């Protein structure tokens, strides 16, 4: 039977040392059995490697940064839609999700489907709201406090203790062992990502992540836990292994059921010596290591697109534990004319 062709816009093509999820999402989409994916890349910068991966991406368009506002973004997407007739867009950055969630009704009118969390779900799991989130849903989270001025940390240190994790509202984090280090991280992270800054109790233990997909009605479509085996100095997994910890899977199912999570997500957790899991962060999108989930039998990008298109999707029942991913870098040779096109025309 001929598979339907689905035209999919994908962001997050920055396959660098802190990689965006775009390229692994595309790899999953191209391996989909239920449709034939035609990929349109959506890039912010002209040196995002995915732009030049012509075997994965059919064409790429530059789109405006989220800071430019939703009006500019919708104008650009209308232009792209006239040419490409997209069926689905998969946004892969935390910072752009707000715009895409807000624009999703307008995108739907243009014929573009999304499968994103609701604005309430998006806000509720924000790092600044995580303690309330943990309390509401009965999930352990480390203590944290939000600060707008570096001097405000003093009133929280008795409660949080040293070392403390200094986090940006979207990205970046550092572990501070004293006030000087805390000030350094505060200035560096707030200059890049703005205020507030979150101070989080440092949780000792082993890092685990779960990626998954909720159908928006409380059902788990996919859940794959991973133990980080090799962590870069940016805290990113460069190697990881799929595991079958029932505690982790139950916690994930509980998270989806209680929040009625809609869309993909990544849970970042720490397991202490007593075997308790602490939820450090909820990322409301597909993570960069999602190809491990595809490799162990749960093609999350494929299921995501089918859910976005309004199709019935069966929950994945199993996956193959003990399979690993090992990330690598790859130098591409790129013609200057390609760089020129994306830089000057904004499309390639």
């Amino acid at each position, binding site marked *: 039977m001929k598979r339907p062709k689905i035209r999919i816009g994908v962001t997050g093509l920055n396959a660098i040392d802190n990689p965006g999820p775009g390229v692994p999402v595309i790899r999953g989409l191209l391996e989909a059995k239920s449709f034939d994916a035609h990929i349109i890349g959506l890039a912010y910068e002209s040196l995002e490697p995915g732009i030049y991966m012509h075997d994965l991406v059919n064409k790429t368009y530059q789109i405006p940064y989220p800071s430019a506002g939703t009006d500019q973004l919708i104008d650009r997407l209308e232009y792209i839609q006239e040419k490409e007739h997209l069926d689905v867009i998969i946004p892969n950055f935390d910072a752009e999700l707000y715009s895409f969630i807000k624009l999703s009704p307008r995108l739907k009118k243009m014929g573009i489907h999304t499968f994103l969390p609701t604005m309430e779900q998006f806000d509720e799991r924000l790092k600044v709201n995580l303690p309330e989130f943990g309390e509401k849903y009965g999930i352990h989270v480390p203590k944290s406090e939000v600060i707008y001025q570096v001097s405000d940390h003093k009133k929280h240190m008795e409660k949080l203790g040293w070392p403390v994790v200094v986090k940006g509202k979207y990205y970046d984090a550092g572990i501070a062992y004293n006030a000087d280090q805390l000030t350094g991280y505060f200035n560096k992270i707030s200059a890049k990502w703005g205020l507030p800054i979150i101070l989080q109790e440092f949780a000792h233990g082993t890092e685990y992540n779960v990626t998954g997909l909720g159908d928006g009605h409380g059902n788990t479509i996919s859940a794959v836990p991973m133990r980080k085996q090799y962590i870069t100095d940016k805290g990113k997994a460069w190697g990881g292994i799929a*595991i079958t910890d029932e505690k982790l899977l139950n916690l994930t199912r509980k998270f989806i059921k209680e929040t009625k999570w809609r869309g993909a997500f990544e849970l970042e957790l720490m397991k202490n010596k007593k075997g308790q899991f602490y939820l450090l962060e909820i990322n409301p999108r597909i993570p960069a290591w999602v190809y491990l989930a595809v490799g162990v039998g749960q093609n999350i990008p494929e299921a995501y697109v089918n859910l976005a298109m309004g199709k019935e999707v069966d929950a994945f029942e199993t996956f193959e534990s003990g399979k690993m991913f090992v990330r690598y870098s790859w130098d591409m040779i790129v013609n200057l004319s390609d760089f020129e096109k994306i830089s000057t025309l904004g499309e390639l």
Partner: protein
Amino acid sequence: MKINKHIAVSDSGFVFNPVTGESFTANPMGIEIIEMLKKEQTVEEIHAAVLDKYHTDNTTVEKDVAEFFELLKNFSLIDRHETTEN
């Protein structure tokens, strides 16, 4: 005493715990003990088998096997409640 049922052990002694994602390498004697545990042999049977094969004294075997069990316990390769019962 029971080895965690999910543990995978290869012929080369590579031990993988799919629950925690940890992996270890065991020497030939370690592999044999793990295999005996998987067959649900008792601690006494394991002592006797090791004593018989390695021709050493009972005290050394008891000490070495106990140390190995402690390692398995620390690495969550043995169900914790099982170890306290034994």
